[in-house]
């Protein structure tokens, strides 16, 4: 009988879960497409910026072929008015969506964990102030704030030296998601720390004269990986959806770049004539988010098989 680490146990449980493995495959595949797709696609002439006016009519720019101009050259059709390839746009859009969601999740998790640990362990006034700050942030209608501040704060990022246009807009979304997202995790972490700090191993560390930073991040933090991991796997898909929603409302990357939300927002204008504009990015978006959520659920089950959920 060989002892197994928690990681090995969790991985062994996940391996047995067929749905989780399928979802992990889809998610990994999507990341691979987002990272390598644009390079590989380039060899096959995949270019989301190339205007192909031969595929659209001269009047009004409607795709000539049915279903949004689906053809061997353009397997998912072409964009209304420009003839740009939808398949290429999807791959490049996936990259931007995943960059935003992944970075925002990372920052959210770091902020939430650090603030949650510090508030929970320190207690007293620090804890109270942090708690009120969280209440305040959670009270803000964040969708409204994201829309309202986008113009001004994007400009401010540009002034700070971030390249103008889409880089500034993308960075703005990452930052604003993180600022409004961390309190949820911080609350969970704080609750766990409140009980962890009374445990013997923390007492032992204190008695040995360990420094505060060591106690917080070497003694307590390793016990928090399970809730943090679960939170991260469920936040990422939420951010993918959120990014799509805000770009649907007009805050987000500008053409010629695109994301799922931007493509869906664009589809509204043509959906009674070309419904594929709605279905194609929508389906990919749903598959991506569902896979992430199912995988997150499976990770939670694997980490804590006795829990009720």
């Amino acid at each position, binding site marked *: 009988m060989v002892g197994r680490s928690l990681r090995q146990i969790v991985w062994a449980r996940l391996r047995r879960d067929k749905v989780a493995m399928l979802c992990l495959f889809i998610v990994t595949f999507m990341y691979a497409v987002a990272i390598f797709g644009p390079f590989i696609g380039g060899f096959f002439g995949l270019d989301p910026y190339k205007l192909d006016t031969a595929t659209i009519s001269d009047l009004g720019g409607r795709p000539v072929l049915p279903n949004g101009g689906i053809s061997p050259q353009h397997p998912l059709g072409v964009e209304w008015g420009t003839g740009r390839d939808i398949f290429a746009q999807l791959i490049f859009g996936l990259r931007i969506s995943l960059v935003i969601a992944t970075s925002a999740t990372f920052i959210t998790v770091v902020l939430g964990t650090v603030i949650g640990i510090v508030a929970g362990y320190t207690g007293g006034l620090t804890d109270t102030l942090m708690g*009120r700050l969280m*209440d*305040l942030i*959670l*009270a*803000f*209608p964040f*969708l*409204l*704030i994201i*829309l*309202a*501040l986008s*113009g*001004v*704060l994007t*400009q*401010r990022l540009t002034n700070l030296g971030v390249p103008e246009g889409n880089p500034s807009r993308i960075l703005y979304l990452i930052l604003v998601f993180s600022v409004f997202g961390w309190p949820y995790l911080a609350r969970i972490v704080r609750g766990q720390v409140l009980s962890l700090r009374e445990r013997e191993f923390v007492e032992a560390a204190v008695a040995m004269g360990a420094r505060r930073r060591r106690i917080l991040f070497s003694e307590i933090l390793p016990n928090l990986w399970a809730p943090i991991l679960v939170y991260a796997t469920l936040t990422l*898909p939420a951010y993918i*959806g959120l990014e*799509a*929603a805000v770009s*649907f*409302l007009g805050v987000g990357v500008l053409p010629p770049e695109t994301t799922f*939300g931007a493509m*869906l927002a664009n*589809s*509204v204008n043509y*959906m*009674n004539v070309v*419904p594929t504009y*709605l279905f194609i990015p*929508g389906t990919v*978006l*749903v598959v991506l*988010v*569902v896979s992430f*959520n*199912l995988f997150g*659920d499976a990770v939670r089950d694997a980490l804590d098989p006795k829990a*009720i*959920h």
Partner: protein
Amino acid sequence: MAAYLVRRVLLMISLLLILSVAVFLLFNMLPGDPARLTCGKSCTEAVIEQNRQRLGYDDPPLTQYVKFMSGIFTGRVFSPESPEPIVCAAPCLGYSFNRHEQVLSLIVRAAPVTFWLAIGAFIIWIAVGVSLGIFAALRRGRWPDRLVLGVSLIGYSLPSFFFGLLLMFFVVIQWQWLPYPSYVSPFEDPVGFLQTMILPWIVLAILYAAFYMRLTRNQVLEVFNDDFVRTARAKGLPERTVVVKHALRAGLTPIVTAAGLDLAGLLGGAIISENIFNLPGLGALSVESITNSDLPLITGITLLTASLIIVANFIVDLLYAVVDPRVRLV
């Protein structure tokens, strides 16, 4: 109880005050000239300067804040020296120079739409979410439970704007079961009202119901493990009484909390649903105000929406004691 109430009220008031400062700072102290935004593109320096004085944007920030806050309680008058002063009676949330109307009256006009949207969706999602959640919990691990969990997962994975657009496409455009949505008051045209609201209700309700199914199911299952439920069973109470009177009552507390906060959040405007279904509610008003850079209006709506949540937080805490007999307010 009285001491708790006083403390809780004081906390709420201090949070509301901090909130007002935060909202005010956020919108009014950001770079950009609010006075320039008050009139369109064809604007002369003289008009901008005049508006700046009329709106009080030439005052130092603290004065502006005090004027804004006192306006809420005592009302205020814009540009008192000019021949046509604008009187804004208490509670004055500001004046939109963009629309030449008081912020409050704009909000009051949009509020009923959002109110009906939120209430209708709320009733559906609570009814569907809680009952399916209980249903699943009572059949834990069997296929009805899995079905409910699966539906719930898809429900909250489906981005609401995509689902809304799908409904729009099929029900309105493709099959033409419903006319193109355009809001009418339920008192003028009940049928038209229902025809307009049914789709946005479904979209919002599905999103929230998915979450409530899980929450209810987990809550009920958790409570089933508690000692007092075992005691109730041991006493020989009928299973029905155990479930309804003991388990559900205790298990519902977090659901009441979540429901209160979600309803309050929704009452502040459902930006996406209002956008897709062409409803002139608070969400649509706030998006318009952002598009027009109408600062007083944005500030007013944000302040109102966030206050709703803080007040709801307070009410929910009080409801705790009513719903859950184990909670004592001290």
